[in-house]
C-alpha cells in the first residue's frame, strides 16, 4: 500500500483530488489543509508522493517544498505541484526548489491520474 499526501486549502478541491487518487486503488490518501498542517505529518510518515498547491494560507507550497527537500525522509519523494496558471514566477521557483512535476488547474481527471501513476512508478 502506497501513501500519498494531498496538500490543498480548498476542501472541494482536496476531496476531488483525494478521491481521484483513491480510485487508483491500493493507495492511502492523507489530506492536509495547508503547509503547516502538512508539517505535522512529514517527520513521522513516509510518503511515496506529495501533491501540493502553492497559494495557501499558513505556509505556502514553496516553503513546504523547500522543507520537504531538506528533510531526510523525503529528499527523494516526488512532488506534484497542482496549481493554477497564474504566478508563473512561483512555478519556476517551485521547480528550482525541487518540485518534480506540474498540473495546471483546471485539469482533466485523466491527466491527474496519469501523472500520479507515472510518479508512483
Amino acid at each position, binding site marked *: 500500500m502506497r501513501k500519498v499526501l494531498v496538500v490543498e486549502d480548498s476542501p472541494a478541491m482536496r476531496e476531488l483530488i483525494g478521491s481521484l487518487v483513491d480510485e487508483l486503488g491500493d493507495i492511502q490518501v492523507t489530506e492536509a489543509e495547508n503547509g503547516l498542517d502538512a*508539517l505535522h505529518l512529514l517527520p513521522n510518515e513516509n510518503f511515496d508522493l506529495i501533491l501540493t498547491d502553492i497559494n495557501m494560507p499558513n505556509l505556502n507550497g514553496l*516553503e513546504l517544498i523547500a522543507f520537504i527537500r531538506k528533510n531526510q525522509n523525503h529528499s527523494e519523494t516526488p512532488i506534484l505541484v497542482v496549481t493554477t496558471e497564474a*504566478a508563473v514566477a512561483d512555478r519556476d521557483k517551485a521547480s528550482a526548489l525541487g518540485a518534480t512535476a506540474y498540473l495546471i488547474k483546471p485539469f482533466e481527471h485523466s491527466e491527474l491520474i496519469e501523472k500520479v501513476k507515472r510518479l508512483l512508478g
Partner: protein
Amino acid sequence: MSKVSVSPEFIAEAQEIVDALNRDLIAVDQETRDGNQDVDPDRINNLFRSAHSLKGISGMFGLEAVSSLSHDMENLLDGMRLGKVSMDAKVLDVLFSCVDRFGVLIDEAAHGIVSDPSGSETLHKQLEEAATGTSDEEKVDLLDTIDLDKDILSVFTEYEEHRLRENIKRNKNLFTLRASLDLATFDEALAALDEILQGKAEVISKLPSADEVEPGNLGFDIIVGSPLNEDEMEKLTKGHVLLVVPIGCTHEVIPPPPDVPTANTANTANTANTESVAPQSGQDTGESPAATDGKDGGKQEPPKSGGGGGGGGGERPRAVQTVRVDIRRLDRLMNLVGELTLTKMSVQGISERLKQDFGFTGLAVDLHKESRIFERRLAELQAGIMEVRMVPLDNLFERMVRIGRHIGRDLGKVVRIEVSGAHTELDKLIVEDLADPLMHLIRNAVDHGLEMPEQRLAEGKPEEGTIKLSAMAQGNHVIVAIADDGNGINTERVLERAINRNLVSEERAEEMSKRDIYNLLFTPGFSTVEQVTEYSGRGVGMDVVKTNIAELSGIIDVDSAIGKGTTFTVTLPITLAIIPALVVSISGQVYALPLNNVLETISLVDIVIKTIEGREVISVRGTTVPLVDLREIFYLEGTRPEGAFCVVAGVGENRMALVVDELIGQQDIVIKSLGRRLRNIPGIAGATELGDQKTILVIDMVGLLTELTKLDDGGDRTKVAV
C-alpha cells in the same frame, strides 16, 4: 445554457468564497472611505486568494462563466497585491459587480443551470481595463540591497517578495526571528507569536527549517518588517523566539515623501492609466461617482450591481443556506447545556424541598410548573444542538462502495454492494472515526468473505457476490451492518489456527462456544488466510477494528453461517457529546456508568454465583459472564451487601457484570477530563457533576473491560493495579 448537476459541496464552498469576497470588499471600501491611503495588504491578499480559489474550483467543476470571471478578477487583484495597480472606488465598484454576478451564477448552478461566459462580457472588459495600470517593477531591485540569504529568497512567493520590497521602501527594520517550537504544538506557538507581533511588525514569511534546533522541535525562521529596533524587538518577542537577527541593509535607502502612497511609485511611467485608477488621496476617493453612490446607499451595503454585470439586480438570491461551524463550538454549547441540566436539577431539588417543607401550594406550585417548562425547553435545546452535529452516512457509504468495487476488481471478484439506510444520521465526529474500521470490514468482506467467481458458480451461487451495507437507527444507537453472501466462517479452521498460534490452549478450545471462537478473529495477530494479501494486511485489521469501535463506545458482533455468509454488526451511540449514564453506589461511593455499554441490570438476590478457576461468574441468558467487584479493583473498603445488583456491560464481544450496591438512577451527563496528571487512570473516564454540586467519577467501561480481557488471556489478576 445547459443543465447539469453540480455537487452541493462545490456550491457551498463557492458560496462561502463569494461571501468572503463580499466581506473583504466591504472592509476595503470602508478603509478607502475613511481616507486610508494604504489598504491593509492582508486584505488585498485575502481577496486575491479568494478569487484564486474560486477560479480553481469552478474550473474543476465545469462552471466556465465563474472561472473565467474569477480569472480576470484574480489578475486584477494580483496586480493590486503586488503594488502594480491601485485600489480606488471605481475598481471597487467593478469588484462588487463581479461578486453580484458570482452570486447569480452560483445560484443558477445550484439549480442545474450553467451559463456561458458571454453573459459577463461587460464585467470582463471592466476588469481588464482596471488591470492595465500594470507596469514593471523598478529597475533597481530593492531585494539586492539587503543582506538576506538567497536560499530564503528562493522560497518567497512573488507576493512575499513584494511585501519585503515594501518594507525596505518604507525604511522598516527587517529581522529574522528564529524559534524552536514543539512539533506537536507549533501551530499554537506561531499563532501566539502572530498575536504579539500584531500591529508592531508585519510577518512577511514563516520558514520551517529541517534542522532540529532541539530534539522533538522544529526550527522556524520568521521574517518580519517592523519600525522597532533590535532591542525593542528582542524585548517584544522574549520567551517566544530564541534569536532576533537583524537583516542588514547594504545600501542607503531613501524614504519616500510621506504623502505619496508608495504603492504607486512604480506607476509613474504610465501616467495616463494611473490617474484613472489610483486614489492619490482621500479626497480623490470622495469625488469619484461610485463613492458618492455608496454614501447614499449606507456604509454597510456594497454598491448595487453597476449594470455591467448583466443579469444581476435586485436581491441576490442565496444559493445554499448553510453555515460551516467548527465542531468545538458545538461542544462548548453542549457543555453549557450540560451545566444548565445541573442548574435545572438544583431548581427541581429546591422545588421538591419547598413542597415538603411548606406543602404543595402557592409559590411551590408555581416553581414546580416553571421548572417543568424549563426542563422541556432544555430538552429541546439539547436535541437542537444534537441535530446540528448529525450528518447522514451517505458520503461515507459512497466511499465504501467505491473502495469495495475497487478491491473486488483487483482481486478478480465480481462484487455488488447494496446500500440501505444511508440517510441514517450520526454525530459527525463518530462518522469521521468510523471510516477506518468500516473500510477494514469492507476489505475483509471482499477479500475473506466472498469466494472467487469460479468457486461460487461451482457452489451453485450467482457469480456476483453481494455485500449489503446497511444502517438503521435504534433509539440512541445506530446499527451498521456489513453482510456478505460468501462462504461463512469456518470455526474449525479458526480454532486450529488459534491453537497453532498459541492464542488459545487445546483444553480451552474444547469448551469454547461459537461466539467465543468468532471472538478469536479480533485477537491481535490472528489471520486465517494462508496468503497475506495486500488488502487484508497481516491480520492487523480486525483487532484494530475492534479497538477503534470500542473507542467510539461501540460494540461489534459477528454472525456467520457456513456457505451462506457472514454479518458484522456495529452498534454505535449516536453521539458522545452528552450521554445517558447510570448512577450507582459502591461502598458508599457514587459512580456514573455510561449507559452506552450497559446491556442490563440484574438483582443478585436470586442469582447463582459460581466460581470457575477462582473467579466469580454468573450465567446471563445462557452466556457465562465474569462478575467484577469494583471494591477489589479500586481497593474500596466494605463488603458486598445483601441485595446487591450487577450491571451487565458489553464492549465488542466482551461482557462483564459489575457488582454495585445500589442503583440510584439514570441521568444525562457531560464527561469532564480530570486534567493532565490524572488523565490516564485505567478504569476512570473522567468526572461529572450531579445536580447537588457533587462531583463523581465516571467509570471507563471500555478501558475496564479491555483490562479484564487481558486477564483472560493468561494474565495474573493481582498484577493489574487499576
